[in-house]
């Protein structure tokens, strides 16, 4: 504003004008302060409402008899960030002495009840827990180990944080923040003019830590309105807001907000905010358990989370951490000795792949989709829910490594030009229908397309058990029923002719159903499916858990239907669960921020198919593993472990599938290319290898369901379907039949024959063909 010389006459007028202008400016300033004040207050008070849902893995249950070795238990404790100590005296510490592990269990708020921190003494013998007592030696029947935090449901490119209450913050952290970032924090009113001046004029002296001009309060305000413009107006606005905040709130509240708000690192698209999450992100344990060196590292990171990233720039981070330690000693926050000791320690940052908040994208995507049935997206990303999921971190890890090593092996095999072969693994616990692991591809990163849920591919021979189940359900077929391996031609509505063939183009004539399924022959399956009727087969697909009825084309019988690995898991889970269908769950319970249990998917079962038919199919699927296309798995499976399963290969080797189960786990594996090009892999050479690697590396049990009362076991000849003795040339197979089912007896080795029966292969006895399928002879 230009100023001219004013005459005395006009001075009064101008003075009055000046006063008016000043009043106007004051009014503007007051309004501005009010507006800014309202904004910052709203941010400050409303901040706690924008919390992403936190998702936890299954807690490990500790109880006498649990199949867990001391070594594996310690592995789990390390994964959870428990610290090995000579004498566990605070939560989050443990000590192993041979077959005994003492630990100080952390407190945890479960959805049903809170668990207080407490001492536990766990005794092991071999692969099992043999004793479990508390600090006073009193038996504990069962207790949960605090679960692993596996991630959060945050908006894309959003902030993630774990809110910590003041009593969860080690007192050293605020003290260190004040000493390093804002020494006058306790006395200033939001801004520290001296500090600003010093920052402007007195630049850093060598060796002394530079003090930024901004107070903690100003940093907090800046973080609230993420805006990197460094204009003077912006700075003034921040300063005003800081002063307003200080006038309205206690210092302690501002410090707590700072600790929960400030940006401390980047994890892919996830912005890591607050010391609570950063502690998990960098050290894999709760903030309360951090030691001096770790706190100093975090305070070092505050100044530049990218520049001082302890994973990518360890040297810089280490140097600055030691600088922080020196300042703390100078300020008298810690002693010189403590600083020296801490400075001698390594950074101790958890491996990126092994951090507390490991990001399991495919699984978390399922959690999010399943929760969307009951919750709004904003509830999930903002309402601070705690989600208790079904993920089993150990199984997930094993599944990831089994798939990775098999894909790598395929890459190396010179057999084909393997470009970017991909794979999916899904693991469920069949009885309860819980999804315990999902691997969505060879990379953990994930860009919206979740192969496990979204990649729909032809399932090939995985459809065959459905065809045989549909046949068994009619009550007219048994494992010994003859099916016809003979050519078939079908005129399609569009005028084309469908002419399926067996893999080897061979034709073998009639054979019992058990052999046709075990060896995954196409023609007998098609002939059987046509006999039973496409309608009925399609219905059986739906009974097993398919949400949409497959198109009733004959090619459906050979698995032309496109299904996702998750849909396959749902269907096979029903087979693994004795014919009871369960919705596959990834969530067990949801807790509101205030601690109220909210809606979550419940365990449900429904009888999907007759128990007798499913039991019979399951026994045939055991034969697949014993002598059929699943046989190569035997090389790696523990001897004596009974499993059942089926291979699947789609046309031109585009998709390689294996779906199979033990008594306690169903595993579905898919391998293929994203562009649907050929892989050169069959279900056996591709997916089965990963499946058996995984199945043999996890603690599991034999598949051994109870036989329904109306059935009995009979020995039949694998090739003719005739009743025989178990000692016949290795061709006898034990199969369930409805009690009293009439069967033809084998000539060469009739039932009751004892010992190995010598037959001369040169002069085979003439055995008459067995009877027609559905017309058993009457005795």
């Amino acid at each position, binding site marked *: 504003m230009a100023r001219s010389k004013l005459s005395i006459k006009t001075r009064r007028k101008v003075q009055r004008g000046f006063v008016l202008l000043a009043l106007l400016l004051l009014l503007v300033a007051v309004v501005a302060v009010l507006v800014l004040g309202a904004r910052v207050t709203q941010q400050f008070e409303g901040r706690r409402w924008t919390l992403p849902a936190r998702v936890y893995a299954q807690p490990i*249950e500790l109880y*006498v*008899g*649990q199949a867990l070795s001391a070594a594996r238990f310690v592995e789990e404790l390390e994964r959870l960030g428990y610290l090995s100590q000579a004498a566990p005296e605070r939560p989050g510490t443990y000590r192993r002495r041979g077959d005994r592990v003492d630990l100080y269990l952390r407190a945890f708020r479960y*959805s*049903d009840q809170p668990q207080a921190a407490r001492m536990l003494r766990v005794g092991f013998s071999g692969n099992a827990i043999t004793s479990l007592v508390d600090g006073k030696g009193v038996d504990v*029947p*069962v207790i*949960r180990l605090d679960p692993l935090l596996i991630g959060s449901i945050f908006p894309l490119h959003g902030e993630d944080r774990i809110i910590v209450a003041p009593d969860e913050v080690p007192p050293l952290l605020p003290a260190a923040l004040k000493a390093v970032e804002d020494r006058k924090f306790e006395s200033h009113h939001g801004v520290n003019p001296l500090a600003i001046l010093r920052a402007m004029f007195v630049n850093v002296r060598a060796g002394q830590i530079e003090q930024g001009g901004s107070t903690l309060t100003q940093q907090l305000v800046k973080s609230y309105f993420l805006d990197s413009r460094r204009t003077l107006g912006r700075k003034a606005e921040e300063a005003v807001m800081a002063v307003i905040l200080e006038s309205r709130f206690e210092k302690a509240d501002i410090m707590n907000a700072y600790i929960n708000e400030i940006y401390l690192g980047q994890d892919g698209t996830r912005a890591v905010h607050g010391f609570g999450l950063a502690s998990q992100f960098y050290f894999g344990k709760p903030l309360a358990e951090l030691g001096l060196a770790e706190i100093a590292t975090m305070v070092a990171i505050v100044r530049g989370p990218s520049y001082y990233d302890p994973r990518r720039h360890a040297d810089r981070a280490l140097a600055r951490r030691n600088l922080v330690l020196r300042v703390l000693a100078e300020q008298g926050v810690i002693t010189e000795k403590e600083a020296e000791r801490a400075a001698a320690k390594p950074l101790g940052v958890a491996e990126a792949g092994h951090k507390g908040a490991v990001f399991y994208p495919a699984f978390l995507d399922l959690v999010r989709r399943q929760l969307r049935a009951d919750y709004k997206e904003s509830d999930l990303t903002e309402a601070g829910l705690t989600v208790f999921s079904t993920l089993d971190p150990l199984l997930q890890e094993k599944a990831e490594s089994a798939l990775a090593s098999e894909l790598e092996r395929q890459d190396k095999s010179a057999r084909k030009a393997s470009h970017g072969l991909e794979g999916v693994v899904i693991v469920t616990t069949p009885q309860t229908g819980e999804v315990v692991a999902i691997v969505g591809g060879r990379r953990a990163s994930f860009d919206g397309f979740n192969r496990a849920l979204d990649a729909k591919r032809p399932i090939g021979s995985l459809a065959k058990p459905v065809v045989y189940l549909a046949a068994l359900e009619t009550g007219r077929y048994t494992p010994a029923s003859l099916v*016809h391996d*003979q050519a078939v031609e079908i005129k399609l509505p569009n005028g084309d002719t469908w002419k399926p063939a*067996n*893999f*080897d183009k*061979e*034709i*073998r*004539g*009639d054979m019992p159903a058990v052999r046709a399924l075990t*060896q995954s*022959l196409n023609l007998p399956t098609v002939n059987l499916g046509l006999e039973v009727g496409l309608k009925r087969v399609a219905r059986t697909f739906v009974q097993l858990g398919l949400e949409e009825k497959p198109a009733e084309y004959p090619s459906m019988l050979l698995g032309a239907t496109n299904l996702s690995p998750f849909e396959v898991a749902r269907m096979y889970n029903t087979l693994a669960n*004795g*014919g*009871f269908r369960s919705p596959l769950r990834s969530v*067990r319970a949801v807790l509101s921020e205030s601690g109220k249990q909210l809606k979550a998917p*419940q365990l*449900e079962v*429904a*009888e999907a198919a007759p128990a007798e038919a499913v039991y019979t199919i399951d026994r045939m699927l055991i034969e697949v593993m014993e*002598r059929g296309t699943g*046989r*190569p798995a035997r090389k790696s499976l523990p001897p004596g472990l009974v499993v059942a399963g089926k291979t*699947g*290969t789609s046309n031109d080797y585009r998709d390689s599938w294996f779906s199979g189960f033990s008594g*306690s786990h169903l595993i579905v594996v898919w391998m293929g290319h994203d562009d649907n090009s050929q892989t050169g892999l069959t*279900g*056996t050479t591709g997916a089965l290898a990963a499946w058996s690697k995984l199945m043999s590396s996890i603690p599991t049990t034999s598949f051994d369901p*109870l*036989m*329904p*009362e109306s059935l009995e*076991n009979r*020995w039949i000849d*694998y*090739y*003719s379907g005739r*009743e025989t003795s*178990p000692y016949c*040339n*290795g061709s006898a197979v034990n199969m369930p039949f409805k009690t009293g089912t009439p*069967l033809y*007896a084998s*000539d060469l080795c009739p*039932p*009751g024959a004892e010992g190995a029966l010598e037959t001369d292969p040169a002069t*085979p*006895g003439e055995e*008459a*063909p067995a*009877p027609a399928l559905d017309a058993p002879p009457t005795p």
Partner: protein
Amino acid sequence: MRSSLPIILTLAALAGGCAIEPFQKDDSKPSVSQAQPRQSPAGSGPVLTAPPPQVEAPSPDAEPAVEVPPPPPPPRERAKAPAATLSPASKALVSQAQAQRKNGDLPGATVSLDRALRIEPNNPLLWIEMGRLRMDQRNYPQAENMGRKALAMSVGDDRTQSLAWQLIADSLRARGKNIQAQEATEKAKALSPN
């Protein structure tokens, strides 16, 4: 109860005997004699001969390897199943769930039983407990389904089967299906050891 013990023991011994040599039992049955040779359909493959070839051409998913059938597994006959019992861990969780149900904390009881089922998924008693919880939640169809699951898991265990049928009867009655409920109750009574 005391007088029935020898009978149970005898039955168990008999069943055990059957489990050892199932094919001898078959021996006593009149085995079906040779039937007339069936006309093989025109255009079909070669007629079956015995003994059949041991070497099979690879099937669609098979490795191109010689198929060697393993020796037959032992017979899968079973003796009468022993009455189901809860492990100490499950027992603690079930009492916790029962206390939670009594206090009206049904979500809490759900968590406790979920935990127990993870420890012993094959224990029919836990499925019956879950069914009882579903009754409290007025989810009667699921209560029945839990009972049916328990039935499938307790073949030969009369005491547990009786409990499962009782649960099914209660669930049917709650839905006004009185005739079926009565039938289920009869089954429960017939199987009850008392």
